[in-house]
């Protein structure tokens, strides 16, 4: 057998051990399924083989399909020769031995095997829905037969990873072996034990668990109803349900046929293409073209956070969640207590909700150490500053950090708007300084925007990027400019929503359009949530700095009349006591109308499409300027930021991917028309013009000079 074979077969005393060896995660790339089929057939043909074991080499069983294969022309599967069919047809038992991940096509192969044994750290799941498709190799037919349609739907529609212990409880795993045990040996032992058991336990032959659906025929409609909000604009979750429904209504082979039809409907759908794009964009974003790959990273085992406010606390929680000891510094005892109390209360809410165990809460709290002096943090590997956003305050903090931090410590700032170089230059080691911008709430939002200072060392930046990933975030690199990349690209959206209101749109109309588009909440409700006073302060600052600054008189009026958002029970919407639901407020409509009249702005009506395009095109144009200035590496990085920082619907791929769907030429045409109508702020970015004239999609835009 060739050394580099993707699948190996060994005869170990009558047990055929089939090992999948396709690093890093044994994805089902071309050749792997064929190799498994060949091995199973070989085991069946060899009279000395009594039973087989299917196992993965390296760190995982089979982590799933090779996503790059989807949406491409592939030879149609030969009937009867698909892996799961060959396993079903096997006359000898096959034991799947699972460690690491058995996901998607990997779990489907395990389900087509006769027995499943796993280590406790293993995870199983059918996450196809997350890339807009469904398990297409019998998974939607076998899983309901194994664990019942309800539990199967839960797994298939959510796509979640199920830990081995839970999978054992559900009945997916037959046997768990100790983490320390030799899984391969345990599986071989199991294979010997079951070698003569007949009939072979095939999931396709079972239908006892399907009785659940017969008893409760409303099950599927109830599931559809329960996902209606979350799954709006998407087809995959509904096709997943339909496939499971078919498992209960049709004989197994017909069900598999139905599953294939439902799969085919999805494979090249807009949503699946967008989700695949997002998947790859999130891998691409880690690549730093101007920093050598082999740059050694600095060790990071301990962290300190300066400032125990909402952001500082959230950042500390992010570190604690991933096992880092983290010191939380606040000079005043009172502020420190308040910060810790907020962290504890956040955790308690999660415990109450059942999403966090009490043990885990205590473990995390134990990792967060409150401190009051800068000397206490000097030995930490990384410090992240999250204090008040004022330049003198930042300068003072960085000067202090420069004094106390050990040589080589990474000194990061969570600023969302202040020039990183100002802070870097407040130290004598600007090479160790960079921005690490979290998004609120910091412990939840995935985006981790690394901001390059002029003097940030390559290893500082590479370590920052890696650090973000270590605390469960998606790191994305940004150049140093006003607002960096994420917020800078989002700002024109915010400007336009305010200006549209002056022209006669109500906040509730804008929010409805954006929620229908797929945002979890509308932009005005989001503003109410964050507090309208935040924007007010920065507007005042900008207006003072720039006489041409476009003021937001209606937003200002709301703040000046005490409507600060949810915290005051009223902002763009009104709120009932103890309830976060935004209600349209006729008072706001009246204020808008009066102000518009005072300003002499003509009122008109807007179509939903105009609202959507006006908000998003404004940001697309800014994103083009960012790319042109070389402040982002690639358009897809901006998409990653919008998906993970702003709640942009993932099944639309991201801002730039979505805009490509409209077409560069059309975006340019519309932006130029708004330039004519609204003036300067809509001047098309030169890059946008070039792309439109050359017919180049946004996602192929070459960025300008390096950051």
């Amino acid at each position: 057998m060739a050394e580099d074979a993707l699948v190996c077969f060994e005869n170990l005393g009558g047990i055929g051990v089939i090992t999948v060896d396709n690093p890093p995660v044994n994805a089902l790339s071309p050749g792997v399924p064929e190799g498994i089929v060949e091995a199973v057939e070989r085991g069946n043909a060899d009279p000395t083989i009594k039973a087989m074991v299917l196992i993965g080499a390296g760190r995982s069983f089979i982590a799933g399909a090779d996503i790059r294969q989807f949406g491409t022309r592939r030879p149609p599967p030969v009937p009867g020769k698909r892996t799961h069919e060959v396993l079903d047809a096997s006359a000898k038992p096959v034991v799947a031995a699972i460690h690491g991940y058995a996901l998607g096509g990997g779990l489907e192969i395990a389900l087509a095997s006769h027995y499943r044994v796993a280590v406790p750290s293993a995870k199983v799941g059918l996450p196809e829905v997350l890339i807009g498709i469904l398990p297409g190799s019998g998974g939607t037919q076998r899983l309901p037969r194994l664990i019942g349609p309800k539990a199967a739907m839960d797994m298939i529609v959510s796509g979640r990873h199920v830990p081995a212990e839970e999978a054992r409880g559900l009945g997916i795993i037959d046997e768990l072996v100790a983490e320390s045990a030799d899984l391969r040996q345990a599986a071989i032992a199991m294979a010997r034990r079951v070698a003569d058991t007949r009939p072979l336990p095939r999931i396709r032959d079972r239908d006892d668990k399907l009785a659940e659906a017969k008893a409760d025929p409303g099950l599927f409609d109830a599931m559809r109803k329960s996902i209606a909000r979350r799954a709006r604009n998407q087809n995959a979750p509904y096709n997943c349900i339909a496939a499971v429904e078919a498992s209960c209504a049709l004989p197994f082979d017909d069900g598999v046929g139905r599953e294939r039809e439902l799969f085919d409907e999805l494979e090249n759908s807009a949503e699946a293409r967008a989700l695949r794009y997002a998947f790859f964009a999130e891998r691409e974003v880690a690549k730093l073209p101007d920093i050598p790959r082999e740059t050694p990273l600095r060790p990071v085992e301990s962290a300190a956070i300066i400032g125990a406010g909402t952001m500082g606390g959230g950042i500390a929680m992010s570190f604690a969640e991933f096992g880092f000891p983290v010191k939380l510094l606040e000079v005043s005892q009172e502020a420190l207590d308040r910060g810790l109390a907020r962290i504890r209360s956040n955790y308690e809410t999660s415990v109450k909700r059942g999403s966090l165990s009490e043990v885990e809460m205590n473990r995390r709290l134990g990792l967060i150490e409150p401190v009051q002096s800068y000397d206490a943090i000097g030995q930490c590997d990384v410090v992240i500053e999250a204090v008040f956003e004022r330049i003198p305050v930042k300068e003072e903090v960085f000067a202090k950090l420069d004094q106390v931090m050990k040589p080589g410590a990474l000194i990061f700032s969570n600023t969302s708007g202040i020039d990183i170089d100002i802070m870097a230059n407040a130290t004598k080691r600007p090479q160790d300084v960079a921005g690490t911008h979290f998004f609120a709430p910091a412990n939840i939002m995935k985006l981790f925007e690394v901001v390059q200072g002029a003097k940030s060392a390559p290893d500082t930046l590479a370590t920052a990027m890696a650090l973000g990933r270590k605390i469960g975030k998606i790191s994305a690199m940004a150049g140093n400019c006003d607002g960096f990349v994420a917020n800078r690209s989002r700002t024109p959206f915010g400007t336009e929503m305010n200006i549209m209101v002056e022209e006669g749109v109500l906040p509730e109309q804008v929010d409805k359009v954006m929620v229908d588009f797929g945002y979890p909440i509308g932009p005005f409700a989001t503003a109410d949530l964050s507090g309208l006073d935040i924007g007010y302060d920065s507007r005042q600052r900008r207006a003072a700095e720039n006489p041409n600054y476009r003021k937001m008189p209606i937003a200002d009026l709301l703040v000046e009349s005490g409507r600060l958002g949810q915290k005051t029970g009223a902002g763009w919407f009104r709120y009932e006591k103890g309830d976060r639901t935004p209600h349209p407020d006729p008072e706001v409509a009246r204020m808008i109308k009066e102000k518009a009249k005072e300003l002499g702005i003509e009122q008109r009506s807007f179509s939903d499409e105009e609202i959507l395009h006006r908000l998003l095109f404004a940001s697309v144009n800014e994103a083009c300027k960012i790319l042109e200035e070389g402040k982002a590496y690639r358009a897809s990085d901006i998409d990653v930021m919008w998906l993970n920082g702003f709640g942009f619907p993932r099944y639309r791929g991201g801002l730039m991917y979505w805009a490509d769907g409209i077409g560069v030429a059309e975006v340019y045409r519309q932006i130029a028309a708004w330039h004519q109508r609204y003036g300067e702020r809509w001047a098309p970015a030169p890059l946008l013009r070039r792309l439109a004239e050359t017919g180049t999609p946004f996602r192929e835009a070459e960025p300008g000079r390096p950051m």
Partner: protein
Amino acid sequence: VAGLQRGSAAIVGVAESDLGAVVREMSPIDLMAQGVHRALADCGLQLRDVDGLLCATSQSRTSGLAFSEYLGISPAFIDTTILGGSSFMFHVAHVQAALQLGLCKHAVIAYGSTQRTVGRRHASVREYNPYETPFRPFLPSTAYALAASRHMHQYGTTREQLAAVAVAAREWALLNPVAWEKKPLTIAEVLSARMVSYPFTVRDCCLITDGGGAIVMTTAERARSLKKPPGYVLGCGQAITHANISSMPDLTVTGALRSGRAAYEMAGLGPKDIDVVELYDAFTINTILFLEDLGFCPKGEGGRFVEGGRIAPKGSLPVNTNGGGLSYCHPGMYGLFLLIEATRQLRRECGARQVADCDTAIAHGNGGVLSSQSTVILGTEATV
């Protein structure tokens, strides 16, 4: 224009009269007649075939009478509509209507001017306007300069971009043996030339030459039996927005938006379908405004659009292939020359400046101070 049928009429003969600086004794009518004789020869018709006569000139109050007398004909259909430099595009639509109605069989449209020889003051007398004249505008430059300044303010258009229009026109002119200007021109030379009316230097302004010409039109059926391939009238559109610049509704948006739309609609074509573009370039801003209003680029983007030689001989959009009013000739009312060049391009008669595979052409006329706009779309037999 409503009522006109796409392709029902065609331009069959075209000719310039003597151009540039003519001898002192030449009258505008002499130049018109010279044009008519040459244009008839171009298509193989005789003067006796002509039963439709159209002309316009600022140098003869009743040019229709003078010209009929001069030619010794009594045309069945006569029209001397005068709306400035775009008059001849209006004439094309009028002839097409007359041909459709059978009011005439063969019409000539003629123009002549000796403004360079007699001086502009004599060739074209300014009328008094109570809102403008007291401020002593230098018309028409002041009016176009206002539009240019507004465009620069509103869209960030630069003087360099305006100059790029003049440079492109000059590059085309160097390929045209009868063009007035014979020397290359650079952006720097445009910018450093004598200032006329900010932001225009003399190189942003059209030439002041003598000249004239004529075109012959007939029905599509008759056109097919004549000497040369006809230029069919696929679309016509017109719009007037004002007479004086102080009454222009928006200094950066011209009636070409409307005239162009109407012409495209009649032709069933859009800007992407046009192979060669002839625009009335009395000033560099004109080309930018008309490229925008006729849909070759979005409003406000014209300045950027003309950068990098895009409309010059090796650029992606051939504009003003004869060298334009800026470098070829501009005898006061220039519209007729756009129709002549467009027809010649469709016939592939343009030698060094010939646009390859040219089947559709747009000839856009402008009159007054961006006041009257008229667009004609012509096509070869293949497009009818």
